């Protein structure tokens, strides 16, 4: 084992400089930096949600029928007491959005990570070993891509009941296959590289080759794919919640808040606008960051600039 690490040292040097180059390129990309700031803000909001809720002093499902509604029972617009206004039953919209951020960030990260881990493991095995795993994988991905995503998801959730677990399972079911296909194709393109032959000749095991030789080479593209998968997961979760098939109420989610207030547009435009803005900020930030990462990792983009 020690001699394989010795031979991989000259290879490790350019990898490190690539990382530095990528980082430098990213730091220069103003859009990507702004997107990172938004993502950081969302994650911090999710992490400190209980603290923020305690500071505001309004429960997410607490109905302020006296202070949160006008005498006529109409929701309050954004103001000093209710930062982003209230909804028709007098709940604090800001607090609900903060709690919803928790759900979104958790679901996005958990589902995307699970899908990527499964996708990378299966995709690497399929690409490296080929044979039956490869055939099964391509069959499975064809079936998943053939099933209409939202209709099947809605049908599944309806048959198995709406719950947090079912929703996340559905999202992972629909997202890991395409990740595996991308990884598989990357592995097939990478495994014929000379450095793989070299490692094999030095007696490296298949596991070592997959994890230590091939994985670092495809990691960049996997990260780009992952950062572009997160907005898809966010939209999917919000869409399911919007259709009333995601996280069961009264738990606040962005999609759920928009659905709850869809008929209240005439009296409370803020109850639709702000959740939409939160959602849009999240998806746009991840898309911009993913785009920036792809540009930074793609050497051909460098040359054309």
């Amino acid at each position: 084992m020690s001699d394989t690490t010795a031979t991989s040292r000259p290879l490790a040097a350019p990898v490190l400089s690539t990382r530095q180059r990528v980082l430098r390129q990213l730091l220069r990309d103003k859009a990507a930096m702004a997107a990172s700031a938004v993502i950081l803000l969302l994650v911090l909001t999710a992490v400190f949600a209980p603290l923020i809720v305690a500071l505001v002093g309004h429960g997410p499902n607490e109905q302020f029928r006296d202070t949160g509604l006008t005498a006529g029972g109409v929701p309050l617009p954004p103001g000093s007491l209710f930062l982003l206004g209230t909804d028709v039953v007098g709940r604090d919209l800001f607090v609900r959005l903060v709690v919803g951020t928790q759900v979104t960030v958790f679901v996005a990260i958990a589902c995307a990570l699970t899908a990527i881990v499964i996708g990378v493991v299966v995709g690497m095995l399929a690409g490296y070993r080929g044979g039956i795993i490869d055939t099964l994988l391509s069959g499975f991905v064809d079936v998943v891509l053939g099933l209409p995503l939202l209709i099947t998801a809605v049908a599944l959730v309806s048959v198995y009941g709406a719950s947090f677990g079912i929703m996340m399972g559905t999202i992972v079911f629909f997202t890991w296959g395409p990740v595996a296909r991308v990884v598989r194709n990357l592995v097939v393109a990478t495994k014929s590289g000379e450095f793989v032959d070299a490692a094999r000749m030095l007696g490296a095991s298949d596991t070592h080759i997959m994890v230590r030789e091939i994985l670092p080479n495809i990691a960049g593209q996997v990260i780009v794919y992952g950062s572009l998968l997160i907005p898809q997961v966010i939209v999917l979760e919000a869409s399911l919640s919007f259709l009333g098939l995601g996280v069961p109420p009264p738990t606040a989610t962005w999609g759920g808040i928009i659905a709850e207030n869809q008929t209240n547009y005439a009296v409370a435009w803020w109850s639709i606008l702000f959740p939409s803005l939160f959602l849009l900020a999240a998806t746009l930030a991840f898309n911009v960051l993913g785009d920036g990462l792809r540009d930074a990792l793609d050497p051909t983009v460098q040359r054309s600039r």
Partner: protein
Amino acid sequence: MLRFLLRRLLFGLLTLWLITLAVFVLFFLATPGDPALNFAGEFATAEQVAMVSARLGLDQPVYVQYLRYMWSLLHFDLGMSFVNQEEVLATIVRRMPATISLALGSVAVWLVIAIPAGIFSARRSGQAADRLITMAALAGMSFPTFVVGTLLFYVLFFQLTNAGFPIFPSGGFVPITRDPLEWLRHMILPWATLAVVGTGTYTRIARGSMLETLNQDYVRTARAKGLGEQRVMYKHALPPAMTPVMTLVGLDLGGLLGGTIITERIWGLNGVGSLAVQAVESGDLPVIMGTVLIAAFFVVVANLCVDILQAVRDSRVRLG
């Protein structure tokens, strides 16, 4: 060519079969509780459940159930709706006009905007205009459909109508055969709802593909031998650059024809997507399975058509 067609057709049929198998497992076998109960609906009496159980052959072994299911599928029999006792296939066919109007119209809208925008952007690669278009496309891609729909509903229906300009209706579908003008009036906002995401995605794809083609050697050759810019652009670069775009159009159209749940729901279009949601809400399992299968059928057929069209245009695909 014939060999390719046959192989591709066989492959499409295999995928379709795998999908029917997946639907069988997901909705027949793995359902928690008694499937007869699911089929009979929530409010069925014990006799009704027993009757459904016998009619569907649920008292028989799994492989018999599967064979019966496949047998009826092969006869284009998707079963009966439990809510209105109508044939599932007939119900779906009746819902197709709204879905087809929505799918074809929105794809047309996004292509008309995205392709020129993508080409324009690619020709000014790296300039301010390019960066602006790329950013706008990214923003369009990031808009969840239900957010677009809700916002369009609020601004272009509610506010505009309130301001005294009732240009757009709040929703509903008017068949084109009844009144083409009303059909158009009712379809514009639904088209826009679906087209925002599509325009964003396709602008990026068209731009990327055009950029790649413009960097090809043969385009440089065409320029070098003194052809005019217009001729290079539209005769040499455009056709090959649009191939990946057209491939995706085929696939997306296939997906959209299976029903677009959110857009149909927001705009009250009685299409296949809203049928699926209604079936889910009333627990109408035969209709749920039917809509999933029909939608999958469209995706597989679209895949097949795209592959065959590409093979006709490009002999490398056939041999590869």
